[in-house]
């Protein structure tokens, strides 16, 4: 564990909590740029199934990830109010996360995060808020997969 991670563990991080299907996930609020409604995307050739397509965010072109497909969670049926959480990775890569609903915010202690099996790299662990169980999404690994994904030539 790096120094940074140790420090993170002892400090509370403000997280934004959202729902995908009937599960809840969270990411650090500092990585969120904005939250906007779902809009029509431009379909991209040879994109992985979880990429809905590209949108224009004030001149920046970024892609939307359908988290339900990405996380293999059944989405809420016929939800007309799905929202897009625009996030930026530490490397400055931006993308949109399509989620069913933003729930609230929570201060989460690093030490409260219980790790899950290693084979699920996009999920950093689970945390309990009251009786709710919330997945901590590893944004960096999601973004890396988006940018570095093998391209079928």
């Amino acid at each position, binding site marked *: 564990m790096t120094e940074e991670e140790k420090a993170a563990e002892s400090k509370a991080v403000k997280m934004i909590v959202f729902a995908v299907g009937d599960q809840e996930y969270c990411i650090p609020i500092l990585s969120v740029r904005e939250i906007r409604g779902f809009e029509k995307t431009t379909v991209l050739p040879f994109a992985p199934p979880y990429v809905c397509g590209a949108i224009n965010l004030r001149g920046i072109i970024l892609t939307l990830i359908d988290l339900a497909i990405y996380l293999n969670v059944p989405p809420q049926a016929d939800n007309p109010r799905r929202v897009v959480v625009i996030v930026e990775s530490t490397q400055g*890569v931006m993308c949109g996360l399509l989620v069913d609903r933003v729930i609230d915010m929570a201060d989460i202690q690093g030490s409260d995060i219980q790790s899950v099996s290693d084979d699920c790299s996009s999920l950093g662990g689970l945390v309990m808020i009251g009786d709710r169980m919330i997945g901590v999404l590893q944004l960096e690994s999601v973004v890396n997969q988006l940018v570095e994904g093998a391209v079928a030539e």
Partner: protein
Amino acid sequence: MSGDMGDILLVFFQECDEQLQELERGLSALSDGESEQETINAVFRAVHSIKGGAASFGLENLVRFAHVFESSLDGVRSGRVAPTQDIVKIFLKAMDVLSDLVVEARDGGPTVDPGRVAESQAELEFIIGSNGEAPKTDDIVPSDFVPVPMDFVPVPVDFEPVPVDFGLDFGFDAAPGQPPAPLIVTFCPHDAMYARGDDARNILIGLTDAAVAVEGEITVTCDVSTLPSFAELEPDRSYLSWRVVLPAEVSEDTVQSVFDWGGDVCDFTISREGEPAPDGGEAVPAMEAQPPGEGSQAAAPPEPALPAVPETSSSSGVAAAQVVPAASPAVAPAPAAGGANAAPVRRTEQATIRVDLPRIDNLMDLVGELVIAQAALESQCRRANASMPRELGESIASMQSLTRDIQDAVMAVRAQPVRSVFQRMQRVVREACSMTKKDVVLTLEGEDTEVDRTLVEKLSDPLTHMLRNAIDHGIEKVEDRLAAGKSAVGQILLSASHRSGHILITIKDDGGGINRERVLATAIKRGIVAPDAVLTDDEINNLIFAPGFSTADTVSNLSGRGVGMDVVKQAILSLGGRVTIQSVPGSGTVFCLSLPLTLAVLDGMLIVAGGATMVIPVSSVVETMIIKPQDTYVLPDGKKMVSIRGDCIPMVPLGSQLGLSAYVSDEPQNGAVMLIVENESGARVGLVVDEIRDQAHVVIKSMEKNYRRIPGVSAATILGDGSVSLILDAPALIASAVGRINTKVSDARAVLAA
């Protein structure tokens, strides 16, 4: 290295590039027979500046060479050496060496061949030597100079006076034995010292510093005996003389250096207490107006003193306050003197400012947004109210034209003349000439033609290869030229001009023209064309661009530097340009490059395929046509071919090619549109699309910044309705359709997305 110093080093290398350009320009002018003194000065200054900066950073190789170069240029500057063609050639060669040494200093990369440096240096020394002045290459960097003060230490308390002059003008030896006695310094400033902005006080500071350095102090006595009565006092004149006693540890040399600047405008003596002062006495003012002090004799100043004639005109009134300036006149400029003597100086040159590139790029991005936003506004207004009020329509129209003007203006800011890259070609030609033993003059035209700066940089490689090719294969050997009745010196014209939104670059040589029989024979031998093919002259000319046409055994040492003309054509195409050849046997060849003015926007064709609106660069499209079912043919594997005036080319349904299958009707409908696209090797493919919607200037946006590379797509753009649209990579589509691996695709994409 501290960031600050690193920044200055960066500026230095930037400046070196500019100075080298200046040098190139000046030397070219000299080579064309110009002999303006200002040109010679500029050339000298360029080398001088590089040397000066290099010395500050302790870049020894660079300094040493620049010094010799500068010395030889000084011969021309001072008129001792005439800038003949031979001499200018030596300078041009030296410039190339200098330029390589700069690169070496900057990148630390491949070291410049010392033999080459020595050879050029010897030639330069010959120029200097021929008029009897040997260059001194030692002492360019003073031995006690510490290059690059990395971190500044504020004036140290135990300040040790650094001799401000490294020259050794004075014959003083260091004190031979123990410093036996306190040092006595007397000095008496002339009027001229004050006229030069200097002051007795400054000397006293210098002497104080010398004493402080040995942890001592000075005792100062001021002789006011020559001070006239107040009424007779002239404020600009010097009336005081000084006697200073310094600690014994201070050496004569140190004191001597204090008088280095002003020694000629003041009388001074240095002696040890108890010894007679040099010439047996203490300072005596040289001016008659000042009676000798203490019956001593004047000491001879180390350098011939200027005749101490009081030259300053005395001012009319004598103000009481001006008694003081005799001691410290320098600090207080006369308030509001009106600047009567100060002739106003007007700038004749256009003022320029330097702007960081990212700022301009940012501006460019914002303008792109503005274009999109304004298009969106227009379409929304139309949608909201089909019968738009006339005023609203007019406002939108005027905003549209303003937006376009802003876009043009920003493009103009980014535009740069092609001069820099054109001038670099002189060197390319020189080197190619020396390798092929041919004599060729490169003439430049239209160097001021401006294109987007991103494009300027990308022109260098293709032009280099084309010029090498022209010299290697175009220009004949001297004997052949003479036999053909041409002058021995070959001519190549490199010109640039604007032509309907494009830049047209031509490379015209007066060589032998393309030998079409040989080209065809070679192409057949290499299997590029069928042995029985019947080709037009134009088609044969274009064979030189075919991949695999030039191979190791046909290219000479020169043009065989790993690149064939196919790479040139690929590079031009990837910039969204085209290249054409005209060649007349016996009288020469002309290559014409037509390029877009920018890589930030692109002339695109809006098409619809697989339900998506996409953009294809107009430059990739050879022609468009409606598909007639009778012209198509289905191969056994299901692929379709289409016949176009007898040529069979593969048909590629764009939608399914890109995997946008949801909307694809695999059968091209009667009436579907086909775009014929071509790649650098002339391979053609018919892209089947549903519809051609429009043509538009689109702003190129990278897809890879927030996503990844998409096969067949070079970049993206934002359309008027705010939606994202993909820009197609035609060469990549062709490559995957014809099954040939196109290794250059990624470059093309990078260029387009840049």
